[in-house]
C-alpha cells in the first residue's frame, strides 16, 4: 500500500479529495501507529483519493494551549495553517479527537477554514455509501463491546452516534457503561494531563474508567482516540484484565472486518 503525501500528489498533478491528518500520536506512538495503519488500509480499500502531509505535518498545538501556553499554540497554528492553505486543503479527516477539535473549532478564527471530520464519521459515511462492506463472517460478530466516549468527540463536539453506528454494523452486542455519552467519564489524558504525572489523589482517572469498562464484562473496549486508547489499555493491564478485555480503536476493528 502506497501512502501519498500532499507534496507527491501535487507534484504529479493530482488533487486528493481529503487530507488524512495523522496527528502526533498516530505518527510516533507505536500503539497509535496501528490505528493509523488500519485507517489508511480502510481508505485504500474504499478507494478514497487521499493524502497525508507527511513530514510537513506538525503538532496542532492542543496540549500547549490546554496547558496554558498560548504562544506555543499560536506558533504551531500559524505554521500548520500556512501549510494547509498552501495546499488549498478543503477537507480533513483525522483519527485524533484533539486534532479534530482544534482543526474544526479553533483554526477558523486564525484563518484556517476546512471541512473537518473525525474518522468515525468518515467510517460511518463509507459504510452507508457502500464503499466498504462488512463481511458477514467478521471476527467481531456476536462478541460484546463497550464504547468509551472521548471527551473531545462527545461533550466537546456532540458526536455520540457516529462511533456507535459504526459498531452496530459489526453486529456486536453493545453494552453501555453507566457513565456514557454526555455523561461519559474522561480517560484522564485531556488538558495536557497525558504529558505529566497526575496530581495527588486517591485513584488514577484511567483506573476509575477502566474499572467501569471492566464492570461491563465486555470482550472489547472500543475507543476513538489514541490517548483514550493508551489510558484505558494501561488501566485494564493494571487490573490484570487484559486477557478478558482488549482495547481497540474502531478503525482497527473495521479494518479487520472488511473484504
Amino acid at each position, binding site marked *: *500500500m502506497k*501512502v501519498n*503525501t500532499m507534496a507527491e500528489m501535487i507534484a504529479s498533478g493530482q488533487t486528493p479529495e481529503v487530507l488524512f491528518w*495523522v496527528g*502526533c500520536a498516530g*505518527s*510516533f506512538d507505536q500503539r497509535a*501507529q496501528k490505528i493509523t*495503519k488500519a485507517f*489508511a*488500509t480502510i481508505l485504500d480499500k474504499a478507494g478514497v483519493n487521499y493524502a497525508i502531509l*507527511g*513530514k510537513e*505535518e*506538525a*503538532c496542532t498545538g492542543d*496540549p*500547549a494551549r*490546554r*496547558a*496554558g*501556553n*498560548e*504562544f*506555543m499554540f*499560536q506558533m*504551531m497554528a*500559524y505554521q500548520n495553517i500556512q501549510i494547509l492553505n498552501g495546499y488549498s486543503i478543503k477537507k480533513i479527516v483525522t483519527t485524533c479527537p484533539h486534532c479534530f*477539535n482544534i482543526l474544526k*473549532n*479553533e483554526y477558523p478564527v*486564525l484563518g484556517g477554514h476546512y471541512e473537518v471530520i473525525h474518522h468515525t464519521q468518515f467510517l460511518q459515511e463509507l459504510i452507508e455509501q457502500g464503499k466498504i462492506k462488512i463481511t458477514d463472517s467478521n471476527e467481531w460478530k456476536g462478541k460484546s463491546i463497550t464504547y468509551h466516549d472521548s*471527551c473531545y468527540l462527545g*461533550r*466537546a*463536539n*456532540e458526536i455520540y452516534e457516529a462511533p456507535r453506528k459504526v459498531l452496530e454494523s459489526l453486529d456486536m452486542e453493545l453494552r453501555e457503561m453507566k457513565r456514557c455519552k*454526555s*455523561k461519559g*467519564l*474522561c480517560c484522564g*489524558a*485531556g*488538558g*495536557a*494531563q*497525558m*504529558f*505529566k*504525572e*497526575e*496530581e*495527588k*489523589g*486517591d*485513584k*488514577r*482517572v484511567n483506573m*476509575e*474508567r477502566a474499572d467501569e469498562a471492566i464492570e461491563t464484562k465486555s470482550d472489547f473496549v472500543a475507543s476513538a482516540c489514541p490517548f483514550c486508547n493508551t489510558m484505558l489499555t494501561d488501566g485494564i493491564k493494571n487490573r490484570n484484565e487484559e486477557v478478558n478485555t482488549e482495547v481497540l480503536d474502531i478503525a482497527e476493528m473495521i479494518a479487520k472486518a472488511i473484504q
Partner: protein
Amino acid sequence: MAIIAQILFIILTATALYLFSKNLLLIRRNILIGKAGFVNDQKARRWKNVFLLALGQKKMFKKPIVAILHLILYVGFIIINIELLEIMADGILGTHRIFESYFEKFELASLYNFIINSFEILAALVFVACIIFLVRRNMLKLKRFMSNDLVGWPRSDANYILIAEIILMGLFLTMNAADTETHFIISSSLQPLFSGINADTLFIIEHTAWWLHIIGIYIFMNYLPYSKHLHIILAFPNTYYAPLTPKGMMHNMPEVQNEVLYAMQPELAPTGAAAPASFGAKDVMDLSSKNLMDAYSCTECGRCTAACPANITGKLLSPRKIMMATRDRLEAVGKNIDLHKNFVPDNKSLLHDYITVEELRACTTCNACVEECPISISPLDIIMELRRSLVMEESNAPQEWNSMFSNIENNFAPWKFAPDDRDAWTKQA
C-alpha cells in the same frame, strides 16, 4: 391608626426596594469589572437557551424527582408572588383583600377563589418540597452536599433559604386560615385550629401573619444578593449569554495571535503597537464579565463537582469551589472598591490566594462540569484563563510540561521524536 399602618407599610416597602436595588446595582458593577464584555450575537438561539434552560429547566430533568420538587419551588415562587400585588395594594391603601371586592363587582368571585386556591395548593406543595429538600440536604448524606466545599456559611445559606420558604408559606396559609370569612382549599382545613378563639384575637393573628409574611418576603429579597440563591434572577441572563460555540472550543487570544504573526511577518506589524499588559487571568478583573456573572449565578448545587473526573478520584480540584472562590474574591474586590473608590492592590489575587496551582493542574478539560451545569456556568473557562496566566506570566509549569513545550517547539510533536520519522509508519504499512 390605619393611616399609621399604611405609612409604615410604605416606608418599609420603599426601604426594602431601595436596599435591594442598591445591592443589585453593586453586583452589576462587580460583574462589569470583568475585562471582556458579553457576546450578544444570534439572539434567537440565545432566547431559545433562556426558554429551555432557565424557564424550562431542561438540564434539571436529568434527575427527574429532584427536578419536579425544584419545579414546584420555582412555579410556586413565581405564581404565589402574584398575590404580592394584592398584598401591596392592601398595605398601601389600607384595604382588606382589595382584589376580592373588585372581582365580586364584576361577578368573578369564583375566579378570585380559584386564583387564591391555586396559590394555596402551591404554597402547601412548596412547604412539603422544602421539608423534603431539608431532609435530603442534611440527613441523606449525598456526597455533593457533604463536601468540604460547603463547610460553614454555604451550608447554612442553603438551609436558611429552605427554612425561610417554609416560614413564609406557613405564614401565608395562617393568614388565610385566620380570615374565617374565607374558605380556601388548604387554609380552610386549618381553620378548626382556630375554633373557640374570639374574633378580635383572630383579627390580630391574621394581621400579624400578614405583616410577618410581607416583612419576611422583604428580608428574603434583601438576603438574595448575599446568597447562593441569586440564581433565581441570574439564571436568565446567564443562560442568555452562554457561549453558542462547541464546548471544545477555547476562545482565541488575538493579542498572542498578532504577536506571533508579527514575529513571522514583521512587515505586518503596526509601528508602536504596545504589548498587552498581561496574559490570561491572575485576578477577577482579568476574567470576562460572563465568568463573573457565572460566579454570582452559581447555586452551589455541586452537579459539576460530582461529575468531575479529578474530583471523583480524590484530587483537590472541585469546579464548584472554583466558582465559589471566584465569587468570594470578586466580593472582596468589590468591598475594596467601595472603600477606596478604585481598586487598591491588596497583595491578594484569585490565582494562588483563592485557587491553588494544584487545583488548576488537576483539570483534564473534559467539559463534564460545563455539561452538567443547569444554568450554563463554565468553571472550565476560568480554569483555562488561570492556567494561561500561570504559564505565560509566571512560567509556572511542571517540568514535564516544559519538556512537552520544548518538544513541540523543536520536534513539532509533544514527544522527543525525530520530525523526519513522522511518516515512518507509511513504510511499514
